[in-house]
């Protein structure tokens, strides 16, 4: 299992579109991807779980991946955060 703390740095927090991007990314990997915020655990492959975290700008999220491709998954998620959930 690998973990990392990531900060939401886009202007609008994790609303529907960033949430959709997170799910899209997490689903590409076999491993489990869990987001933890304020003690709440969310399955990153579930759009409802991610949206329910209600992560606003500045929120810190602990990302936990576990499985055969856990390192790659964590990298991909980190990239998504640092790109402010952009498409390009």
């Amino acid at each position: 299992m690998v973990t990392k703390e990531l900060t939401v740095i886009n202007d609008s927090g994790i609303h529907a579109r960033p949430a959709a991007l997170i799910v899209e990314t997490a689903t590409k990997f076999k491993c489990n991807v869990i987001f933890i915020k304020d003690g709440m655990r969310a399955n990153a492959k579930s759009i409802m779980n991610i949206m329910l975290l209600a992560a606003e700008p500045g929120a810190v999220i602990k990302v936990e991946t576990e499985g055969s491709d856990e390192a790659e998954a964590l990298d991909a998620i980190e990239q998504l955060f640092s790109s402010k959930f952009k498409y390009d």
Partner: protein
Amino acid sequence: MSGPKPKRVMLQGVPASPGFAIGPAFLLHPEERVVKKRVIPPEKVDQEVARLKRALDKAHKEILGIKTRIIGDVGEYEARIFDTHMMMLQDVEIVAEVIKDIHENLHNAEYAYSSRINALAERFESISGGFLKDHMSDLRDVATRVIDILMLSENNLSYLDVPEPVIILSRNLTPSVLSQFNRKNTLGLTTEVGGKTSHVSILARSLEIPAVSGISWSGIEIEPGQTVIIDGTAGNVIINPSLRDIKEYEFKKAAFFAMERELSTLRDLEPITTDGKYIELSANIELPIEVESVLQYGADSVGLYRSEFLFLTREDMPSEEEQYQAYKYIGERMSPRAVTIRTMDAGGDKLVPALKMAGELNPYMGWRSIRVCLDNRSIFKTQLRAVLRATAYSNIRLMFPMISNLWEIRETKKVLDEVRKELDKEGIAYNAQLEIGCMVEVPAAVVMADELAREVDFFSIGTNDLIQFTLAVDRANEKIAELFEPNSPAVWRQIKSVIEVARRHGIQACVCGEMAGDPLAAIVLIGMGIDELSMGPGVLLEMKKLIRSISFEEARLCSEAVLLLTTADEIGGYLRERYGDKLADLGITKFPGKRSSQI
């Protein structure tokens, strides 16, 4: 029908899509759908899970079908919400919980599913104010579809299967449910929630279905099949109309169709006066999806895209990417025609939730428009980046609102240059020849127009603000509504001077305020030498008809006469006297009211 004659009831709502319809009522949600709890025998658990999965599959296919249809009918941009819908439908956690409930508690699929959704809804409600509210109705839309499929598979009865033309009376009609109805059998519709800019109203307009929103059914008795009249132009609904009502509205309906037919032949003709002067006719829009009606009405361009509408209906700020997609979409749909994007004009009556704008004592003269942008550079820069990126693909122009001194326009251009440099550094493409303009809507800008003209490529006169500032009449204050007088000579003389300045500097002059869409005012504006008139898409064709029936010389003489008059009453009277009959002959009936809430 037996019993006493049903009572005639007239309701006033909000006009959501123009046109008239008469027909039998179809009640979309006569009562709340009741999902019954049943206990299934243990040996049928697998069957029940399979039934759930079939329903989810079917819902997925339906949403995909709707998405394709919306892309075709309305556009790619508006269809994107259905991607989120499909993701909600396939949400692994929801599906796993529901299957677990079926296995462990032997609940029937629809009950297990709806209780899971209700539990989620409760959690949504408890979460910080409004952040996710919009998405809650998306989830409900998806859930209703699944539950419908599950219940229909049982009694094999499609409530959307309407055999004859009807008028749909609904509480909250979603675009996806509306698109399930056969267009031919949908005469008109009403909704309880949602206004002119709700998605379903926009869809109704693009499908040309008359619609009225804001019609509440509480306390009114109505049976399916009773006759209803919908007046989507005025926003009226009559339940159980009298024979006289029916005759009157049959006539209105026929006249409306005749007018529409006639106007549609105008679509491809040029807005050119009888002596050959071309007046560019463009449209004011608030939402990307409106470009469809702009194209439908044959506008030359979008003269004013009110970008602040991207910011008004949400708690967070739209990201650069979201804004870019919206601007690019409008630009590409309109291409090669021009699109003038006005930067965020927040404040006054348009509060942006994410900016936490406080109510002010004097909001129209307060912290609004370009002032807000110059005070929030990072938000402003995000918008400018998005616009600049979109210019790489289409004919976009950029316009800044409420410029009242030289410092503001120079500072704004400095910010724009900073953004250009950032993009250069990042190697991102944009149109280096981008035209920029400013709105002239503050008397100080009229006085300083000569200097401002050296800074920009075009002027756009915002008449609504110019009138309120010139006359010191708050346009939101009902008590002084009568004082809001577009025909004031003080207003006309300023407009004339701005057009003159623009001509002297060889830059374009446009009017994008309410006056541009008023037939009498438009004649004067044309006579003063305006290059472009920008108005609501709905009045474009009538305006074109008017322009094609007058000569520039005639309009010029008229404008000269107007400038000699010294009171608003004289000017109004003169214009009505001179052109009232002509407009009546042309069948132009739309005289926009004195007041307006926009711009």
